[in-house]
């Protein structure tokens, strides 16, 4: 992979990230003129406490002074204290990060594998019965808000059968030993993972189907067939690798949606991750928390896009060998 390509992508990602940092300041300090007004307990604050809060939140001096204070604190990963719990925001976030990473990671992996498989098969056999059924199903899945899947699963699977817990990260107050606890956690993950997977399966399958159909008319497939390769070989060695390319960038862009999905899914299942923290912060007007969560979500998406650029370069020999 050419060094220049990598360097260009990394610099681009860093620029976008600094753009987000500046934008964040703009949102929370300029559009919102008085962030303290959203603090629920403000009426009970004494004058001194109010001044302490203003100092702590970096709301002193001119906008430029505030900006400098803000940028410095971002570099120190100091995002202030949550309005709600009064604990440092960073600690609140790092405590919840693993749960969300696990949920989003497992379901993204599942969605990509199943979605790409269905999309490939449907696109390759365009117009077949499999294509028609799977495309209709994918359209319906795409049209469904993921939290509605969660509600359906809760009402009709967890509620009716009692096979799955209705929420949380693990059984409260139970200890089954290491293996038992692990199984207990997985048991709690099944429905949330299923919800997120169903929620995004449709769009991934549709994306892959479209790019598969686009490659069908290419000359190199005719060449491959003329060489006497079997149909399955033409598909797996020539069509799929090429069809994957546009899918990689589209999937990277749609990962921003998955973050949104995590917020509602965690809300439905009271799954204590960053998504549930976001939902609570919305209801409590917890500005410091929301500000940091927005930064983290943006950083995650930017990082994911960077990874996608690398994967793209690995898959595409034209980029890989280019100077």
């Amino acid at each position, binding site marked *: 992979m050419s060094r220049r390509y990598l360097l260009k992508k990394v610099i681009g990602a860093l620029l976008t990230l600094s753009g987000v940092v500046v934008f964040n300041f703009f949102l929370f300090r300029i559009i919102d003129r008085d962030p303290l007004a959203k603090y629920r307990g403000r009426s009970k604050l004494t004058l001194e406490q109010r001044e302490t809060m203003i100092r702590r939140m970096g709301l002193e001096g001119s906008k430029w002074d505030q900006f400098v204070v803000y940028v410095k604190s971002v570099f120190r990963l100091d995002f202030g204290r949550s309005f709600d719990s009064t604990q440092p925001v960073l600690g609140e976030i790092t405590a919840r990060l693993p749960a969300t990473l696990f949920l989003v990671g497992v379901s993204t992996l599942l969605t990509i594998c199943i979605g790409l498989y269905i999309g490939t098969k449907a696109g390759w056999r365009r117009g077949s019965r499999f294509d028609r059924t799977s495309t209709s199903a994918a359209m319906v899945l795409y*049209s*469904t*808000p993921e*939290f*509605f899947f969660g509600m*359906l699963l809760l009402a009709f699977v967890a509620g009716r059968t009692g096979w799955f817990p209705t929420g949380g990260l693990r059984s409260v107050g139970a200890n089954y030993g290491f293996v038992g606890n692990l199984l207990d956690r997985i048991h709690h993950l099944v429905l949330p993972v299923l919800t997120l997977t169903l929620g995004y399966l449709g769009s991934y399958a549709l994306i892959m189907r479209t790019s598969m159909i686009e490659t069908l008319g290419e000359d190199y497939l005719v060449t491959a067939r003329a060489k006497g390769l079997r149909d399955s070989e033409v598909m797996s060695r020539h069509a799929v690798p090429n069809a994957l390319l546009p899918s990689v960038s589209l999937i990277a862009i749609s990962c921003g949606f998955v*973050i949104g999905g995590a*917020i509602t899914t965690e809300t439905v299942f009271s799954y204590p991750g960053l998504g549930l923290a976001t939902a609570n912060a919305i209801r409590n007007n917890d500005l410091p928390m929301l500000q940091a969560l927005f930064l983290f979500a943006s950083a*995650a998406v930017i990082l994911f*896009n960077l990874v996608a650029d690398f994967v793209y370069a690995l898959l595409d020999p034209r980029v890989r060998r280019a100077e």
Partner: protein
Amino acid sequence: MTWARRRRAFSRVWRELRHDRPGFIGLLLLSGFGLFALSAPLIADRSSLLAASGRNNPDLAAPSSKFLLGTDEIGRDVLAQLVWGSRVSLFIGLLATVVAVVIGSLVGLAAGYAKGKISAVLLAIDDFFLVVPFLPLAIVLAVILGRSPTTLAIVIGFTSWAGSARLIRAQVLTLSERAYVERARALGAGSWHVIVRHVLPGVAPLIIANATLIVPTAILTESTLSFLGFGDRLSPSWGKLLDGAQSSGSITINAWWYFLPPGLCIIGIVLAFTLLGRALERIFDPRLKGR
């Protein structure tokens, strides 16, 4: 003459749409929802949305002849909220789309037509909005700007124009290479004249198809935001109804009449706009035939 041409173009689109099965299904479904929204005053009085209206009714009661879709946690008629909610959901979805299409078209046209620095700056802004996760951005904006339906619509529109700007720019770039645009320029036409009279008509079909596809995502975003606590409980959209159903515990007691109808309505309307939008894309862009 222009009008005759437009009418001919319109009847061609209509003819092709009638023969495009998914697109036609989408159109029918959409008309159904349109009628549903229009008939709101016939089905239920607006006053049944008020919190006080449910005072004498049983809470979370199953469907009966009096309440065809049962009642919610404070005894209000679910059907009344569903039919009035269709207006809220459609209003937010359409207004958000108008905002997104206006910003997206302006940025796309300018970035495609202008060369050099202006184009580069616009592209950088577009890239930024394409990468920043739009739901967290919409959440943050809505918390700061306010939670009313109109604000929500503007926030959703403001966060979802980047993709269409990109599409429109690409189309403008190919159009400006065409002979008729060059001819107009050679005859001394100014930028404004070229954009309005020659480029805009060329990209208009794309803008229409694209707008039809923004509506469903806007409605989905609206339902997500409402589910997370934005919006107005006294004039609920379908997403807000789902929020009510979730927070009132209707799922635990399996009060399906409360959460099933709004969810199915969201799926239906999103499906309708998506099918129609994809059909319009196929009709306007012959390269997409057979998809």
